[in-house]
C-alpha cells in the first residue's frame, strides 16, 4: 500500500499496564483480557490518515519487565514516537515514570515525540492516580497526555493518531531530518491525493446563478 510517511513507534512502561492491549486494540480493534507476558518485543502495524495523507505506523511493543530492559533500550534510537504507559489503578507504575523517561531521553534521538498515557480509565472505582496528576507530570516534562482504556477502546485511536500528528507537525516545521531513517521516519513512494467530491446542492446553485 502506498503511504506518504512511515513512523516507527515504541510502547514502553511497567509490566502489566496494558501496552500490548493498547497495540492490539489499535491494530486489531479487539481486547484480550488475559495477561500474556510479552517476551522481548512484538510488532504491529496500521495505516492512518492525517491531513489527507496516508501514514503507516510500525509499532514495537516492548516487554515491561526489568529483565528485558537492556533489550528494549535498543529500540529507542530508531523510533520517532513513544507511548509511555502507566496504570491509573497502580500508583507504583506512575511513580516509575521518571525512570522510564530518563531512560528514553538518554537513548533516543532528541526529537522523539513522547505521549504519556494513563491506561485502564474504565476502572474508575479502583483509580489510584488522579487525572490531574498525570496532566501535571506531562506538563512538567513537556509530554502530551491522555487517559485511555484499551478495554473500551476509549481514546486509543486518539493516542496513536495525536502522536502521529505531533510528529507530522515537527516534520512540517523541519525539525526532523526525514532523510535519516535512524529517526524512525521514512518517506513513502510518491502518490497523488484525489479529492473530487461534488455535493448535490452545488448543481442547484449553479442553475440559480445563471438566472441573473
Amino acid at each position, binding site marked *: 500500500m502506498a503511504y506518504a510517511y512511515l513512523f516507527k513507534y515504541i510502547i514502553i512502561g511497567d509490566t502489566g499496564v496494558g501496552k500490548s492491549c493498547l497495540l492490539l486494540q489499535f491494530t486489531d480493534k479487539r481486547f484480550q483480557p488475559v495477561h500474556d507476558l510479552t517476551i522481548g*518485543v512484538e*510488532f504491529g*502495524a496500521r495505516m492512518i490518515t492525517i491531513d489527507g495523507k496516508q501514514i503507516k505506523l510500525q509499532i514495537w511493543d516492548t516487554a515491561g519487565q526489568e529483565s528485558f530492559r537492556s*533489550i528494549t533500550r535498543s529500540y529507542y534510537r530508531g523510533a520517532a514516537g513513544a507511548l509511555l504507559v502507566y496504570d491509573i489503578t497502580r500508583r507504583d507504575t506512575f511513580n516509575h515514570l521518571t525512570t522510564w523517561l530518563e531512560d528514553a531521553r538518554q537513548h533516543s534521538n532528541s526529537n522523539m515525540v513522547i505521549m504519556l498515557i494513563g491506561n485502564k480509565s474504565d476502572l474508575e472505582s479502583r483509580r489510584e492516580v488522579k487525572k490531574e496528576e498525570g496532566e501535571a507530570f506531562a506538563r512538567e516534562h513537556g509530554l502530551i497526555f491522555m487517559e485511555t482504556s484499551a478495554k473500551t477502546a476509549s481514546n486509543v485511536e486518539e493516542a496513536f493518531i495525536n502522536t502521529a500528528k505531533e510528529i507530522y507537525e515537527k516534520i512540517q516545521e523541519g525539525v526532523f531530518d526525514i532523510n535519516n*531513517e535512524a529517526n524512525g521516519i521514512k518517506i513513502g513512494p510518491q502518490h497523488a491525493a484525489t479529492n473530487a467530491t461534488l455535493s448535490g446542492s452545488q448543481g*442547484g446553485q449553479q442553475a440559480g446563478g*445563471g*438566472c441573473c
Partner: protein
Amino acid sequence: MNFLRGVMGGQPAGPQQSGAETIQKLCDRVASSTLLEDRRDAVRALKSLSKKYRLEVGTQAMGHLIHVLQTDSSDSEIIGYALDTLYNVISNDEEEEQEENSQKEAEDLGSQLTDALINEQENITLILRLLEEFDFHVRWPGVKLITALLKKRCGPVQGIILVSPMGVSRLMDLLADSREIIRNDALLLLQQLTKGNAAIQKIVAFENAFERLLDIISEEGSSDGGIVVEDCLLLLLSLLKNNSSNQNFYKEGSYVQRMKPWFEVRDDNSGWSAQKVTNLHRMLQLVRVMVSPVNSPGAISSCQKAMHHCGLLQQLCAILMATGVPADILTETINTVSEVIRGSQDNQDYFASVNAPSNPPRPAIVVLLMSMVNERQPFVLRCAVLYCFQSFLYRNHKGQEEVVSTLLPSTIEASSITAGQLLCGGLFSSDSLSNWCAAVALSHALLDNPAQKEQLLRVQLATSAGTRPSPCCSSAPTSSPRAIRSSAGPSHQNVSYLTGQISENQGEDERLVQGLCALLLGICICYNDNSLENHTKEKLKQLIEKRIGKENFVEKLSFISKQEQYSRAAHQPQPTGPTPEHMLFDHQFTKLVKELEGVVTKSVYKSSEEERKEEEVKKTLEQHDSIMTQYKELIREQDAQINELKEQVVSLSSQSEQMKRTVAQQVLQIQQHRDQHSILKLKLEKGSQQAGGQGEEAQMNGLQREELSRLREELQELRGRSARLEAELADRNAIITSLNSERAQTVNGLENNAETLKELEALRSRVASQSTQISQLQAEKQDLLKTAAQPAKEAVDPAASDLQSLLTAQTQESQRLKEEVRRLAESGAGAERQLASANSSVAVLEAERARLQEELAESRKEQDDLLMLLADQDQKITTLRSRLKALGEPIEDEDDLDSQDQGDDDDDEPDDD
C-alpha cells in the same frame, strides 16, 4: 592467564621455547615502553608471531593487548595490530596443521582463549566501541574478531552484545559501510550474531535490516550475484525463520513484493552457474519460510494473498513450466508453490488455471501428475508433485470435486488426459511408489469432503470391486471411515481376510500390515450403524474376541504408531524420505490414526451392555441436543431478525434524516428561486414601464432611442439646410448661368450634395431596421414578463404527514422550478445575445453617424467654398454692375439680393459650430 598455561602446558621443547621467550620479551616491551612507537613495533611483532605461536601469544599477551586497546585507542595502527593479533589467536581459520587431533586441539585453544577474553564483559564492550572508529585498519580486524568470538562462543557473546548499550545497533551500522569488504564481513558477523537469538533478530530487523539486505541483493544482481547475495539471503533466513514478529514486520513492510523480481528467470539455458542455483535455492527457502505450514494460519493466509497479489506466485508457476530449469530447482519450486497455494482458495484457483505451454495446452496439474506416476522421474521430484497436489486439494472442495469428477465414468473424455486417469493408472501401476503416491493423492481428494467420498465410492464399486483389498492394505490405506464401513461391510470375504491377517503370527516385516488390518477392522466396528445383519458391531466384536483376542488386537493396532516412518510423517505435511521405501505414511493419515487408535481401543473393550446404555444416553442426549438446536436455531433466527430490523431502523432513520435535510435544502432552494422570480418580475415590470425591456437593456434601448431621435433631428435639420442650400444654389445658378461660364463648378458642388443625401437615405433605412429590432426585443420582454408572472406553485405542503410523498412532490416541484429557472435563464441569455447584437448595430450606427458627420463637415466646407465662390461671383457681379453703371446701363434689385445673401450666411454659421 595462568590457568591456560597450565592446561596447555607440556609442549615439546625446542624452537617454541625460544618463541615463548621472544614473546615474553615483546610483552614486556608492550607493558613497559613509554614510547608509542616502541609499543607499536612490539605489538606488530606479536602479530607476526601470533599464527605460529597461538598458545604462547594467546596466554602471555592477551592481557597486554587488551590494555593497549584501552589506552592507545588514539593510534589506529597499534589498535589494528592488537585486534589482528587477538583475531589470529582466537580463530583457527588459517590453521596449517592437518591432523585431526591437532585441529581439535586448536579448536579447544580458540574456545578457551575466547572464554578468557569474554570473561570480562567490558572487553566486548571495548571492542564494540572501537568499531565506531572509521579507519579500515581498526574496523576490519574488529569485525573479524567479533565474528570469530561469536563462532567460538555464540550464546555468551550474544548475551553480552545484547546488553551492551547500542551494541546491536552499532553492528548493524556496519552494513552501511561504503567499503565492500567491511560490508561483506559484517554480513558474516550478523549471521553469527542473529543465530538462534530472537531478541537480536528483532533488533536487527528494527534497524532496517530487511531494507538494506534487499537493496544489497538487487545491487549485486539478485540470483546472478555472487556469494554476497547468498550471505544476504542466509541472513534474511536467519532473521525470519521461526520468528513470527519479524515475519509480520517483513510482510507489513511490503518486502514480500520485493522478492518477485528474483524469480524472473529468463528462458536461456546458459546462465545456471552453481552459485545461481544456490542463490535460487535460498530464495525459494525464504518464500517457504513465510508460508510454512508451521506458521499461524492468519499469517500464512495474508502472506499467500500478498504473494498472489504481487505476482510472485505467477512467477513461480512460470518457472514450473519453463524449459531448462535444473531438476533440483524445479523440485524446490514445486515445493514452494505447494506452500504458497496450500489452503488458499484464490491461489489454488489460480494454480488450477495454469496451463503448460504444450500443444494442445494441458493444465499444469495434469503435467505434474504425469511426472508423479512416472518411474523415471527423480524420487524427490515425485514427492514434491505429491505435496503440490495435496496442497492444491487442502481445504479446496472445488478442486476436490473437479478431480473426483474426472474419475466418474460419465465425464471421462477419451481425447484428453485427466487427473483421474493418471491417478487410476498410478493405483494399478506395477511401481509401488506410483501406487502409494496415487493412493495418497486420491485420499486427499476425499479429505473432509463427505460428498466426494460418496461419489468416489460409486465409481470404485462399479469398476474395481474384485481387486481392492490388496492395494488398499499394502499401500497406506486411503482411509475414509465411511467409505471403508460401507465397502468392507458388504463383503464377507473382506472381513475374513482381515481377521486372517491379524490373527496370524507373522514376522517383523508384516507387523505394519497387521496393524493396518486391525485398524480397518476397528473402523468397521466404530462406524457401524448395524444395518447389515451379518456384521453388526456385536458380531464383529465377538469375532475379534474369539479369533484374535482383545489384548492381541489392541497390541496389533498399536504397531502402526510405533513405526519410525509414522513419526516422521506425523512431523510435517510435506512428504519426505531418503528412499521410496520410506514412503509409507501420509501426514493426514497419521492424524487419522492418532484419532482412531483410542476410539477403536475403547469400543473393543466396551461390553455390549455398556454400549447399549451409552447408546441410550447418547440418544437422549441427541434428543436434547436436537431440541436445543431447534431452540438455538429459533433464537438465532430471531436474533437475525432483530438485527435486520435494527439495521432497517437505523437505515430508515438515517434516510429520514437525510430526507429532512434534503427537504430543508429544497425549501431553501425554492425560496431562492422565488426570490429570483420576484426580482425578475420586478425587473421585467420596470422594463415594461420604460417601454419594455429589463433594467440595463431598457436603459440602453432608451439611450439608443434618444440617439436615434437626435440623429433623426439632425438629419431633418441637415435635410432642411440642404434643401435651403439647393434652393439658394438654384437661385444663384440661375444668376450665375446668366452671368458667366464658371457656374459649372457650382453644379459639381451640387452633385456632391446629392451624394450626401443618398447616404443619409441609407442611414435612415438602418435606423428603421434598428427600431424594428427594438420592437422585437420589446415583444420578447413582454413574453418573458408573462412567463415570470406565472406564479410558482406551492412546493411544500407542511400538512403532509408522509415524508416520502412530500419529498417526491417537492423533488418534482423543485425539478420543475429548476426547469423553469433554467428556461428563464436561457431566454434571458437569448435576450442578452440580442441585446448584444443590438448594441453592436448601435455601434455600427454610431460609426455611420460619425462618418456622416464627417461628410457633413466636408459638405459644409464645400458649401463654404461655394459661398466663397458666390462671394467672388458677387464681387464680379458688382464689378460687372459697376462697369455697367459706368457704361450707363440702368440696374435693379441687385443690392437687395446681396444683403439677403449675407444675412443667410450669418444665420448658418453659429448653428453649424
